[in-house]
């Protein structure tokens, strides 16, 4: 008999991100998990980078010059978009879990995702045009 457990953790994790034959709510789950991982990575990277502040003005201003290069700015936009998606979706999950609107979660998700996309676009435009 083939069990569920014989696979490696990685291949098990890969199953989370397979949206085939799944509904829109799974997209919510996938996005939430990806943004969770991305934001966690960013959080600790950010904390380490901010250590430059303790090194004094030259170090920090030099660091700022680096992060103003386009590739870092693009990364910043990703972080903002991830923040919006994760935050707004998180509100839905929190509400559902306290017994609010679980029957309307699909509609809620679509509305919140639209808001997240619009807000991310506004920020992206602002950041790239400044």
């Amino acid at each position, binding site marked *: *008999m*083939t*069990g*569920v*457990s014989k696979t490696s953790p990685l291949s*098990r*994790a890969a*199953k*989370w991100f397979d949206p*085939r*034959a*799944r*509904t829109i*709510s*799974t997209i*919510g*789950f996938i996005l*939430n*998990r990806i943004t969770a991982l991305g934001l966690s990575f960013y959080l600790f990277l950010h904390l380490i980078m901010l250590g430059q502040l303790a090194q004094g003005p030259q170090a920090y201003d030099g660091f700022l010059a680096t992060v103003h290069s386009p590739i870092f700015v693009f990364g910043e936009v990703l972080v903002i978009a991830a923040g919006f998606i994760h935050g707004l979706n998180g509100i*839905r*999950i929190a509400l*559902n*879990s*306290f*017994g609010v609107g*679980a*029957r309307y*979660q*699909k509609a809620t998700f679509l509305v919140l995702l639209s808001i997240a996309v619009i807000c991310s676009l506004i920020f992206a435009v602002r950041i790239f045009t400044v």
Partner: protein
Amino acid sequence: MSTPKWVVTFQIYRKKGNADPHFDEFKLEVSPDEYVLDGIERVWAFHDRSLAFRHACHHSTCGACGMRVNGAEKLTCITLIRDVTQDGGVLRIEPMRNFPVVSDLAVDMGILYTRMEMVEHQPVNSDAKEAIQPEARPAGPVGEEEDYIRLSDCIECGLCISACPISGSSPEYLGPAVLAGAHQHGIKGNEQLLKLVDSEDGVWRCHSAFECTAVCPSFVEPGWRIMDLRKQVIGERFKRLFRGSSPKIIDTMEASK
């Protein structure tokens, strides 16, 4: 009166003993208004007598014929061929995920049945208890003094567990049907059950993909029930936080009676 026939290719997952699994193809002439299970039964009857699959009632009361049809979890006895493919199309039939495969399309339901028993899900209930969701309540004699005993909505088909992304990576997770069963039984005053659902493998493991509700063929709405169960568990924990360990006091009081 005959609707035009369709030709559909059934691609069926095969597994025998320790041999490697593979897919077999069977081209069948079907009526689009037949059910997927009818096609599978015909493959067994006329093409390959070695095909193993679970089925019994053929009208969605027993929950035996859950499979994956083109990737999606379906109760095949009520899934019209018309709704899942087209003339000349393909039906890829696979066993449910997250259950051990016995052979071909047949899986071992032991895990689910064991856990349903653990959470004391009652196979028959009063009608009022089954109708927790008022808008889904069927038309008919409602709200009268007389109540009816009836078989529970959950048919233990396992489709929700097959569709759940968390059950997929973490077999210890109790799973949607089981948590829905616990919700239906009620955790009020049931210390054992509260402990079970409020554990690492209980309600907190759900990550709101709501696939369970999407695939449930039997009006159980496991996703909603898990969320409602969370509310109840949180409520219970807060009550205890402010009242200290009062349940123990009640226990001893009852014991002394």
